């Protein structure tokens, strides 16, 4: 049994559901209560790659969302093998933030395997993000997911998809 360990950072505006997505993914739980994350919150989750005896250990960095991502925040991203961008479908401004952040990270670290989660899909009727905008996201992100940390919708699929992208990238980068 071999183990690959990857650092995955969850980024996005505050209160879009980053902490909730991680909690759903790691412990399969959800809380309605909002508790602001300060700094970074580390969690791990191991997944077995199908049809292999390889174990993939994801070290999840739930990075506190803030309006401006400064040097301190970028420092958290050092060595990340994958990125999870999270936006809140009920606040279209959070999609803009995610796109902007993606640009800044690309500039600093170059391309890193990423997925974007349009979260709070359980509140679809209150969404303010147009289908058109979602379509545009598809041009920037290879994988766009409509998720709900509350119901669990698509959370696991999105993260497993990212995990396999990371594995593919790692293998192709290997000498």
């Amino acid at each position, binding site marked *: 049994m071999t183990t690959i360990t990857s650092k995955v950072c969850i980024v996005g505006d505050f209160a879009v559901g980053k902490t909730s997505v991680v909690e759903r993914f790691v412990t399969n739980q959800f809380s309605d209560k909002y508790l602001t994350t*300060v700094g970074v919150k580390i969690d791990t989750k191991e997944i077995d790659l199908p049809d292999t005896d390889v174990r993939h250990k994801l070290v999840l960095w739930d990075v506190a969302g803030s309006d401006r991502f400064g040097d301190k925040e970028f420092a958290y991203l050092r060595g990340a093998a994958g990125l999870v961008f999270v936006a809140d479908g009920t606040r279209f401004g959070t999609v803009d933030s995610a796109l902007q952040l993606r640009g800044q990270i690309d500039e600093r670290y170059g391309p890193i395997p990423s997925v974007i989660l349009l979260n709070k899909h359980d509140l679809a009727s209150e969404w303010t993000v147009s289908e058109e905008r979602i379509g545009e996201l598809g041009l920037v992100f290879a994988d766009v997911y409509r998720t709900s940390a509350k119901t669990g919708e698509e959370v696991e699929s999105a993260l497993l998809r990212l995990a396999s992208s990371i594995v593919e990238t790692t293998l192709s980068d290997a000498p």
Partner: protein
Amino acid sequence: MKLPQVVVEHLQSDFLAETRPFCVLIDANHRVVDTWGDGEWLGLAGLPAGTDLFEYAPYLLGTLDEGPFRLNFVSSPAGAVMNLVTIPHKDQHYAVFLDARRAHDDLQKKQQVSNEAVLLQANQLKLIARQRDLIAELVEAKVELNHHRRDMERTSAGKTRFIAMMSHEFRTPLASIVNYSDLALEKDSGLEEMRKSIEAISRSSRHLTSLVDAILDEARLDAGHVTLRERDFDLLELLDDLSAMMAPLAAEKGLSYATRVDADVPTHIRADDVCLRQILINLLGNAVKFTEEGGIRLYISCSDGRLVASVADTGPGISLEDQERVFRAFERGGNLQSIRSGAGLGLTITLGLAELMRGEISLDSTPGLGCTVTVYVPIVAVDDVVESEAPLPVPDASVFAVQGTTVLLCDDDEDMVALLEHYLHRAGYALITTESGAEAVEKAAAYQPDAVIMDINVPGLSGLDAARELRDKDYAGPIIAHTASKLSAEDQATFTRYFRKPAAMNELLMTIKSLTSNHAA
């Protein structure tokens, strides 16, 4: 200034107590070489040399670079909150963990408040936006509602207009019926006078019947207008009828009444006679009503394929103001409320009827000296009139029954029973009368009459159900519906024949005769 040792020691001990530093020296493969301090609060106490530190502190991944590196407020899976510093030393690294719980919690509280405030504000904005949307929707709904209301008001105004129009149209023949009946019932009225009265009543009744026909046609009930029904008819006969109707009303008020017809006016014409009759009744009726002295003249001529009918009176006339109002009201679609005088009302309706006939009306009046209203309607002269559509032929006495034929009659209207009794007896039928559906079924079963005449709206079991029951009981004779109601095709099929009241007695008798002779044969 250089700090004295005592101050430095003080600061050092405060810092150590606050941050509880734990230092680990690791090699290039992040294996533990040595440790310093207490790792208890981190869950890293008692790490044996040679252990892979990443196993226990996965968050170190990506932090071991060339220069010193610092991360603040890292929450470990075990629940510790630390500031993390890595410092390279030769080809090894020092990893320093500092307890940051207190500062983290203080910052967290502040951040929580400020984030919640932002979220609250965003929510408020969203609520305001939604409110605005709702208000917009509300306004839209209200506009639509107003629209519907106006539509409904228009429709209802149309209905009101229609009812006003119809009640007006009904009133003249009704007046004739009422007055002539009174006249006929007077003790000293002679036979000839009585006969004339009854003829007048009969004419007016027939006119009423055609009015009812005209409006009760479902399509016509809607929208308040009557459609044109042209037929060939005898104009002189119509004018005679009008004279017979109007002259006595004029005479009653001591007014003269005269009709003049130009020689070139064709006798037989094609037009909507009900409409024309109504127009003239309205104009003449108004003239009689508003004239107190002098007389009324009806003058008929012909020009350019149009019939020209002038009604002149010597009444008070219509003021210019009222004339204008009449025509304006008509153009506006007839807001009758603004017209107070009956003359005006009649005129507005008459204008509508004339328009329907593709005709025109002109009005010439000098207040105080009288009024002349002229109607122009297109007509076609025809050679002869086939009296196929004569409204209701009067029954003749030549429809005698086959000897010993019995008819069962079911009707709860005494007058109707008396009338039918009269005609049926005169024709030689034996008669069984019943007043309810149940009674009719019972007696028909008991006496097996040769025919049944059935009203539909009778007390208890309806005529329709009674007819069905009779058929169930194998009654084989003809059952004739004679009713004021309109029957659906399906209901009509229950009966041998269907007559709508008022029915032509002649036809009813002929039908009974032919049905019963078949039956007897």
